[in-house]
């Protein structure tokens, strides 16, 4: 978002973030050197293939996952210090929605109890104020009051997702991080939840980060996007220009893989079909991580790892060729 005031610190600023897991089979470099700046008020999408480190990155940003290296600042404060000094204050400001909404809710609690729990933990309001807040929350996510007495398991996938969003909003956070909040939903319901996020973001001035599989939806609602590959950022920038003119060959292939729902557009469309699967984060290839599948790989790519550099769409990409091209353009 361009109209953010200079003085305002970004909602998220991660530097040199690494998360490595020691396993029996060797070191897994799930996140391997990520720099990420997300301004306040952004609606940021993180995309990439399964296993590229999206969940691990999101968890590391909010301290659910210990980072091997690197720092994270949230709203201008060092995240680790903030959590140490004021755990509850941090929890009020930053909320996380898990990939599996059911897994994060108690089997026995009703929706009402699920929503009230954070208010009780943070000693917010008296009984009637809390009741009032629950009504507001249901209103925000467009659920009828009748769901309060039901248990989350008995709700549809979309309703459950609304409950988990309402719970995350209970404490009025300024930052909401959601791991695949759409993947488990049916298409028509997915649109409802996407529109709900967009509305909440505008209405409450939230910063929202979503990890998502559905690129077309990211293009539709996210103001900015980060494309990850094997634990690193391949490309990032403002969503529409990135989608219109992707600089990184991996982004190009990823977008090309998304079919058009219109067969008249789909049938004649040239497609980039990538060979094989991404390599394992146990032993990423030397040089550029995408070099084993890149259709335009050059000898230098297998030796030198490309760093993020400004590219034509005014975002950044980590590709030797993309950087060269953008220098020619600029």
């Amino acid at each position: 978002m361009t109209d953010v005031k200079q003085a305002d610190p970004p909602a998220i600023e991660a530097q040199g973030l690494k998360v490595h897991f020691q396993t029996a089979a060797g070191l897994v470099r799930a996140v391997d050197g990520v720099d990420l700046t997300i301004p306040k008020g952004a609606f940021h999408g993180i995309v990439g293939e399964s296993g590229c480190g999206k969940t691990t990155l999101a968890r590391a940003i909010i301290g659910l996952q210990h980072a091997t290296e690197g720092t994270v600042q949230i709203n201008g404060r060092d995240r680790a210090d903030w959590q140490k000094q004021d755990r509850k204050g941090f929890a009020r400001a930053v909320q996380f929605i898990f990939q599996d909404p059911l897994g994060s809710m108690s089997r026995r609690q009703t929706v009402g109890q699920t929503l009230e729990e954070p208010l009780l933990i943070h000693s917010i309001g008296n009984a009637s104020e809390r009741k009032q807040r629950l009504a507001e929350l249901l209103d925000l996510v467009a659920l009828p009051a009748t769901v309060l007495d039901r248990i989350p398991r008995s709700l549809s996938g979309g309703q459950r997702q609304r409950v988990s969003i309402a719970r995350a909003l209970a404490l009025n956070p300024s930052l909401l991080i959601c791991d695949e909040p759409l993947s488990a939903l049916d298409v028509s319901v997915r649109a409802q939840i996407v529109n709900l996020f967009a509305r909440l973001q505008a209405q409450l001035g939230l910063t929202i980060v979503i990890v998502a599989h559905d690129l077309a939806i990211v293009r539709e609602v996210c103001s900015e996007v980060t494309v990850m590959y094997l634990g690193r950022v391949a490309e990032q920038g403002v969503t529409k220009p990135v989608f219109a003119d992707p600089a990184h060959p991996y982004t190009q292939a990823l977008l090309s893989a998304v079919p058009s729902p219109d067969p008249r557009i789909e049938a004649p469309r040239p497609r980039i079909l990538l060979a094989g699967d991404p390599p394992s984060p146990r032993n990423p290839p030397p040089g550029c991580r995408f070099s084993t599948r890149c259709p335009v790989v050059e000898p230098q790519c297998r030796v030198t790892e490309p760093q993020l550099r400004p590219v034509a769409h005014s975002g950044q990409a980590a590709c030797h060729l993309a950087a060269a091209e953008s220098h020619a353009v600029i």
Partner: protein
Amino acid sequence: MNAPVYAVENLVIDLYTPSVSVRAVDGASFHVSPGETLAIVGESGSGKTVMTLGPLGLMPEGVAVDLRGTARADGRDILTLSPSELSALRGGFFGVIFQDPMSALNPMLKIGPQLASQAQKYAGLSAEAARKEAVSLLARSGIPDPEDRYDRYPHELSGGMLQRAMIALALAARPRVLIADEPTTALDATVQAQILALIRTIQKEDGIAVVLITHDIGAVSVLADRVIVLYAGQIAEEGTAIQVLTAPVHPYTRGLLASVPDFRSESATGTKEIPGIPPNQAQLMPGCRFADRCDMVQATCHSHRPRLQTVGLGDVPHRVACPVVIAAEGIVTHD
């Protein structure tokens, strides 16, 4: 058009569990011919799987099933077959790709021998020939280094590789009909594109009939010749992929397509939502099942069940179960 190899008519499927009874499929007919891909589209629970695999005797476990209608494979009535005859038919005539590869592959056995034994059993090959066939099926399914993968266990392969191995397994018996039940739902976009391309190549080369079950409009657009849109166990609309995806008539089809953004199209509307959720199939009301969510609903919709009417003639008729839109837009019908 070729004569259908698999044809189902007036199928009604009731499922009974100790606590509920569900009308999973309610009067659906479909057919598929050699060399053709039929896509069955609908949201989860709409009855796609039960409608397609039910007549083959593949039903959810622990559920009592009441199935009525007719189902023919190559003209032969399959609903009267004994379980063992049905099982033989499933292995040889029908190849099935499931959403979850682990439900088809035995985790305790190496990949290659599983393929070889299928090929031996149904394609009548010798042990030696079956091994060769298995390696070539792996290669054909896009698995690199198939000789090495032959001796791997399922857990040693990635999700995309496993899906390819299952496609190889489904092809081992040289089926006439390939049924793919959400074959790419669990996969990444890049791998999805590979798998769809693979299915298309196989179909072109072998001229088999393919039934693609999916909720992914993109996959339909890539593969399908014809499309059936299922809503709460009933067919809402059917026709060619072009008819249904680019000139939909039924309010549900229109809503579904409007909820799917297309970043390549200037005219696409983004993410319009259909309000509400699909009905509970254990408590169905009379009338149109989409009535609670429909923006065109009229009083009669709640009492009269709409029947499929032909709105477009041609090799493949375009049929729609919504008299309201047909009347409101002055669409000419042909039945």
